[in-house]
């Protein structure tokens, strides 16, 4: 059973769908994500964010207003007179950083845990899987609030917090792949030839885990960015001297009736990027999963 299911994942089948054209929505997603990455990397260089500076005479200006120095605040200014566009660009960098770092950290932990429990099985599998079950039974944002509350606000702590809540997802995906791969004939052959466990895991089991792991990672990046914004919204995420979309939405709550742009701009940006990441993830899964063609 597992032999039949896993066989098409080998080289020829994976190469074939890549020739298919990407759907339009995937291109849109790619464009949004590309713009986001570009903004996160270059934006703060072009428009440096100063967390300390305030400009009270120009507070709460609507989008398109002209500032004292003649420049135009295209997205308006916030309640202490900072340019919203600058704040958003700085926030995009934090979002990208936290999203990427969390998925890397959580993915690495999940990969090791998944390989160990999938390949060896037995008590290691039982322990790791039960820990994962217990954690999944607990709402992840609640767990994140608990850990973030104990650790205190900082970018590193947010990454740690979110990685702790996300590793299970990666571990499950990897475990399933490892479980399927360890009983395949070529793995058995390697074992018969006398290869040790580390060699078998790295050379023979690991390659079949990459693709599902990458698909899981693209989906998770979007969710992690939302989780970071949620924590920052609650004041548990990014410290106040750094920009975060969630914190900006939170700060603008009291101004929904008078200065809608403060909350709306970062919220729209977050929604667009997460949707874009989702579209890209979907397309990637379609490409990577041969069963999607059936």
């Amino acid at each position, binding site marked *: 059973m597992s032999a039949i299911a896993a066989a098409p994942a080998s080289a020829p089948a994976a190469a074939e769908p890549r020739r298919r054209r990407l759907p339009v929505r995937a291109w849109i997603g790619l464009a949004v994500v590309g713009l986001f990455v570009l903004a996160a990397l270059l934006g703060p260089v072009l428009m440096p964010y100063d967390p*300390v*500076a*305030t400009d*009270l*005479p120009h*507070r*709460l200006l609507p989008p398109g207003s002209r500032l004292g120095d003649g420049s135009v605040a295209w997205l308006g200014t916030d*309640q*202490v007179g900072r340019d919203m566009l600058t704040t958003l660009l700085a926030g995009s960098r934090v979002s990208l950083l936290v999203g990427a770092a969390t998925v890397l950290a959580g993915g690495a932990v999940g990969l090791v845990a998944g390989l160990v429990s999938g390949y060896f099985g037995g008590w290691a599998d039982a322990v790791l899987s039960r820990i994962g079950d217990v954690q999944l039974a607990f709402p992840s944002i609640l767990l994140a609030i608990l850990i973030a509350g104990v650790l205190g606000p900082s970018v590193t702590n947010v990454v740690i917090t979110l990685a702790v809540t996300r590793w299970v997802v990666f571990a499950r995906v990897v475990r399933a792949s490892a479980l399927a791969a360890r009983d395949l004939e070529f793995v058995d052959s390697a074992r018969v030839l006398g290869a040790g466990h580390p060699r078998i895991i790295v050379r023979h089991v690991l390659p079949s885990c990459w693709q599902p792991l990458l698909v899981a990672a693209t989906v998770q990046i979007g969710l992690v960015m939302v989780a970071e914004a949620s924590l920052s919204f609650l*004041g548990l995420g990014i410290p*106040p*001297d750094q920009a975060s979309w969630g914190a900006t939405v939170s*700060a603008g*709550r*009291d*101004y*929904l*009736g*008078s200065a809608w742009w403060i909350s709306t701009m970062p919220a729209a940006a977050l929604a667009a990027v997460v949707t874009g990441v989702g579209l890209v993830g979907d397309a990637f899964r379609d490409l990577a999963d041969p069963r999607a063609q059936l």
Partner: protein
Amino acid sequence: MDLRRREFLALAGLGASAVALGGCGTAGAGGAAPRGSLRAAFGQPVTDLDPYNAGTAVDEASLIVKRLVFDTLVRHDAAGRLVPGLAASWRRENDTTWVFRLRSGVRFHDGSALTARDVVACLERTKAVKSAQSALWATVKSARADDDTTVTFVTDGPMGTLPVNLTLLFIVPAKLVADPAQKRRPIGSGPFRVTGFTPSTDVELARFDGYWAGPARLPGISMPFIAETSSAITALRNGDVDLLWPVPSDQLGEVKGKHGVRVASVPSWTYYLTWFNCGRKPFTDPRVRRAMVQALDMDEIVGKLFGAGAQRMDAPIPSTVFGHAAQRPYAHDPGAARRALRDAGLGDGFTTTMMWFDATGPLARELAQSMISAWRDIGVTVRPQSIEKAQWLQRLNTLDWDMELQTNTVTTGDAAFTLGRLYTSKANRMGYKNPALDKILAAAGQAAGSGDRARLYAEACRIVWDDAVGVFPAALTTAYGLGTGITGFTPAANNQPDLSTVTRRTP
């Protein structure tokens, strides 16, 4: 397909009825308060109603409810003058003895009579509990009940502030002073009795018909806590609440001139302050503290941030408080501030921290950011620490901070409550120790004549101001948002309006 549509309609109907029921739930919320009750929302949650609970002894939100549920011997009238409450009259027998004569025939909500023995028990209880009020009562040696309606207070040395301090001594039955049930369903003798209380959520009050000054006009008061400012303003505008205070200055435009709502403003006894921890380097040096004050462009910060919502302060207490004396404002002069830092050996600036909790007052975070931004211009890096209220309180009381930002209310409207209570070496609230100031504050506490007291507190204002114990940015103006059906409302400077005189016309 047909079946699906029917299922869909059934589900939609279910959903609609759930919404309708939910709506009924909110409209009829406060089942404990009678029909026609006033719905009043204050900006901070009420956590406890026991007048002798240490943590909430001077907590503004709980004081609002306590003033409606309990009586005090002396109270403030709308103009801020001291007028008889439970005490019909009082006199000073000699330097250390005060005699208060109580009204007769006053009854508690449970029907028992209020006597002088209840007053004595309450005073003993408040002295026994260590709270933010303790400093006010330290010089009261004892109280005794001479008969049912006479209480004699004996003080340790002359104490001119006794009548004004008594506006904070809430009278409960002697047998209940330490009863834990007082936290939730307290018994008092005030115009309203508590019929329901969920901490940090809502308080339900009903009229007490046996009130000695005649029953209140309102059948009851319901006080929901609405955490989100924008929700609270929506509730006011669509008539869900009749009274909302304080309306933050940035949101005044959403309330002013709107149909069915009006705004009443009053300069309040609430003000922002930033203390320096004067016991910690580099704030041990008054030159450094003054330089920090000089770095701030107060006119711009207060004017642009708060607009009509606050006034720049010219003393360590608001100008409407007794004992205020205007001082020479610090001019905004970053150059002089930098020179002063250089003279103090801090030419390269320094790094420090400032802590606050966001709910302390309107625009607290924005005020902190503006000051931190100005301090950077003189080379001082201030790391912001926006923390939880409980943690802030704990660190404040253990002096574990460099700078802190908070609002403070001169609850009694008298300088004794702030200057006399907070700035003595013994109180040690911000590490500032000045024997000369101690002497003046002690003399002011003992003086009986208001002329003497005013002169002494003016001197205390000058010392605190010139020594720059803190930054005193703005005295807040409290804006009350009122439904147009409300009459008889007088805005109160201490944020604790007397709601017993209010009437509500049902629209």
